[in-house]
Structures are given as structure tokens and as C-alpha cells.
């Protein structure tokens, strides 16, 4: 046997693909997966918002309110009940259970949580000047329930949290962590949702007091401190001026009368 030394012309064991090209492909694949998951979660969320059973909603509400140092407030609840009484007898909202909580923070806000938990921030209460404008805020939050925004606001976090609940159970630490991580309370609604809740709230306010007085008071005070409109181009909330304009247009359209506002009751806890 004769041995003929020969060099290998090419090496099949070493890939010719450039490592950076491979990195680009793999990361592209990962991104595509992420986008796919995002879209699927979006679709699932839309489905959940429409079909979420009350028991699951109550569980979410319990989880979220448990994380906050919020106290139930009877005085605010009285005012909410008065608003609910003004609804037609067959309104779906009258069959729901609502609880109003006061959260001690300087932020001027109110939030509609799942399970009928309404959070009023003490900063907002400190700003309020009349029963009517406070009622407008509560009616606005009820408007979010009416349009099921209180579920929709959590978007994809909702799908993730509910999936955790279904897989790991209601009492599991994993589900609680999922809620904590993905259901952040920042009450970001779209402008359309805010406007819809405003207009619905205005109607309820008028039904409650017989006139639409004080409907725009709260936003007027907000507008003074809100400053330029420019940041609101990208903000989720409409600029207070825009909300006032919408409300005034609706008041004129429906020819709602404007009456005198009631001063705030002394039973409200104010700092």
C-alpha cells in the first residue's frame, strides 16, 4: 500500500456562515416569536375582556386591592350609591357590587379596579370643591365599568395573570406574583375611552342632580396646572381643555340645564 500525502482542499466541519449573520438570524427569529406572542396575547385579551366571568374578576380585584393600603370609605360609598340610584332600574351596573376605597396619596386620580373596587386618591379629594364635581369623578369611573375599561386597561397583563391563575390556582404564590408584575395600576386608558367615560358620566351626573352643573369644574382646575397642550399629543389622557370642550359640547347638544353646585359634605375625610 502506498501512502500519498494530500492536503484537504476544504473543510466541511467548519461552517462558512459568518457568526454575525447567524446571530442576526437567531435574534430575528426570537423577535418574530416575541411579536407573535404579543399579537396572540392581544387577541386573547380582547376575548377575555368580553367574556371574563365575575368570579375571575372578583379574584383579580381582591389580589390588587390586597396590595394597596387603601381603606374602605363609607362617605364616598354613600355618594356612589346615590349615583347608582339615578341609573335606570334595569341598568346592568345596578346588579354589580361596588366598594369605594380611599388611598392616601397626593396624586390626583381615581381608578376603577376589577371586582367593583373604586380607588379615590386623597389628593383628588383634597382638590374637590363641590359634591357635583366629586360625583362627576365617581360617575366617570362608573363609565369605565359600563364600558368594561376596568378590565381592558390591563391589556396583555390581564391575559398573563389569568393564565397564571388557571395554571397555578387562585391561592398560589405564582399567580400573586403574576398579578403584581403584570397588572400595574396606572389607569392608562385611551383618549377615546376617557372621552366615552366622561360623556357617560355627564349623563349620569345630570340624572343624579337634575342638572349638569359642576361637570367641568374638576377639569378646569386641572387645566390651570396642566400647562402646555404639547405633551398631551402623546399622553394617554386627553388634555383637560379637550375634555372640557367635549363636555360642554355634549351639555349644549342635550340642552342639559346648569344649576348651582352643592358644597362638599362635612363627612368627607379631607386633609
Amino acid at each position: 500500500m502506498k501512502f500519498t500525502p494530500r492536503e484537504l482542499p476544504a473543510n466541511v466541519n467548519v461552517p462558512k456562515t459568518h457568526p454575525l449573520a447567524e446571530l442576526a438570524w437567531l435574534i430575528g427569529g426570537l423577535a418574530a416569536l416575541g411579536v407573535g406572542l404579543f399579537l396572540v396575547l392581544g387577541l386573547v385579551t380582547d376575548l377575555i375582556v368580553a367574556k371574563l366571568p365575575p368570579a375571575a374578576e372578583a379574584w383579580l380585584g381582591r389580589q390588587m386591592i390586597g396590595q394597596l393600603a387603601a381603606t374602605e370609605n363609607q362617605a364616598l360609598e354613600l355618594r356612589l350609591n346615590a349615583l347608582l340610584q339615578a341609573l335606570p332600574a334595569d341598568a346592568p351596573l345596578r346588579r354589580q357590587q361596588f366598594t369605594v376605597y380611599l388611598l392616601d396619596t397626593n396624586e390626583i386620580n381615581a381608578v376603577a379596579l376589577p371586582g367593583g373596587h373604586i380607588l379615590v386618591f386623597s389628593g383628588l379629594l383634597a382638590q374637590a370643591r363641590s359634591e357635583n364635581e366629586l360625583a362627576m369623578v365617581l360617575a366617570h369611573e362608573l363609565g369605565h365599568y359600563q364600558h368594561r375599561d376596568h378590565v381592558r386597561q390591563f391589556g396583555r397583563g390581564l391575559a398573563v395573570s389569568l393564565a397564571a391563575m388557571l395554571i397555578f390556582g387562585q391561592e398560589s404564590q405564582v399567580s400573586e406574583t403574576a398579578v403584581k408584575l403584570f397588572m400595574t395600576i396606572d389607569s392608562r386608558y385611551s383618549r377615546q375611552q376617557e372621552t366615552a367615560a366622561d360623556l357617560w358620566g355627564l349623563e349620569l351626573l345630570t340624572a343624579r342632580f337634575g342638572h349638569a352643573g359642576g361637570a367641568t369644574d374638576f377639569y378646569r382646575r386641572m387645566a390651570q396646572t396642566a400647562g402646555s397642550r404639547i405633551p398631551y399629543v402623546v399622553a394617554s389622557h386627553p388634555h383637560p381643555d379637550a375634555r372640557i370642550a367635549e363636555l360642554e359640547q355634549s351639555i349644549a347638544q342635550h340642552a342639559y340645564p346648569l344649576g348651582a353646585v352643592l358644597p362638599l359634605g362635612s363627612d368627607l375625610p379631607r386633609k
Partner: protein
Amino acid sequence: MLEIVLQNLDLVIFLALMVIGYTAGSIAEKRHYASIEQRERELLRLMLVNASGSYPDGRVKSAFLVSGSAVISVDYFKRFLAMLRNLFGGRVRAYESLLDRSRREAILRMKEEARAKGAVMIMNMRLETSTIGTSDTSKNGIGCVETLAYGTAVVLNPQ
């Protein structure tokens, strides 16, 4: 600027490691291949076969074991590529060149030993590969691959 860097320190460190891994890894690989190819040409005439052969009586002066081993480590960039590969499956191209380098380096070292001892041929050559630094229980060890090449070197009597 500094604030952004500090806020995303994890990401900055990751990117830095990726860049270091990629540049250092590429330079090392390029140099190593240049050295491998040059030495392979030099040692081409030293016969190397897997088969176990036989010589007529009196032809072989001596026969002995020669071995060479090489350990090559993975760099951060390649490890990240391989990790992504774990998701999608397919050829782990990032690791293939590492194995190729360690096999060829081990064979070269074995051949160099044989040449230093005056052999003209290595028979019955075998390759063994093992990983070091990683095991099933510890996943964060340093991933290295060791290739061991060994065979029987043959020194012939002058004819």
C-alpha cells in the same frame, strides 16, 4: 449619559462581554487556523493512519505510544449563539469550529511528538473528546472541550 449607562448596567455589561467575546474569539480563531494550516503542511509527510498495520520482521526499530491533547474554550459570543440555538435547534455552528480546532491541534501535537522521536508513521490513531468545566449539575461552569489524539508511532530501521 452616565445615568443611562448606570440604569442599564446589566445590558451594558452584556453588550461589552459580547463585543469582547466576538473580537477576541475571532482573532484567536483566525490566528489558530493560520498556525494549524501551516503546521499541517509541514507535517504532511508524516504518515498518519487509523488502521493497524504490520511490517515485515526487522523493519521496525521501535514502536511507542504518542499522544497530543488540546483544550479550547468557548467565548461569550459563541456561548450566546449556542444558547439561542437551544431554542430553535439546528447545527450549533458556533461550536463546530471549536471542535474542529481542538481535533486538529491535538493531532498536530501528537505528530510533533512523533517527529521529535524520529518516527515516520503513526498507526492506529484514535480521537477522544470530553468536555471540562461543565457537568449536568453545574450549568454555569466554564465550557471547554478537550480532544485527545493518540496512536502508535513507528520508527523504522534504515534499509
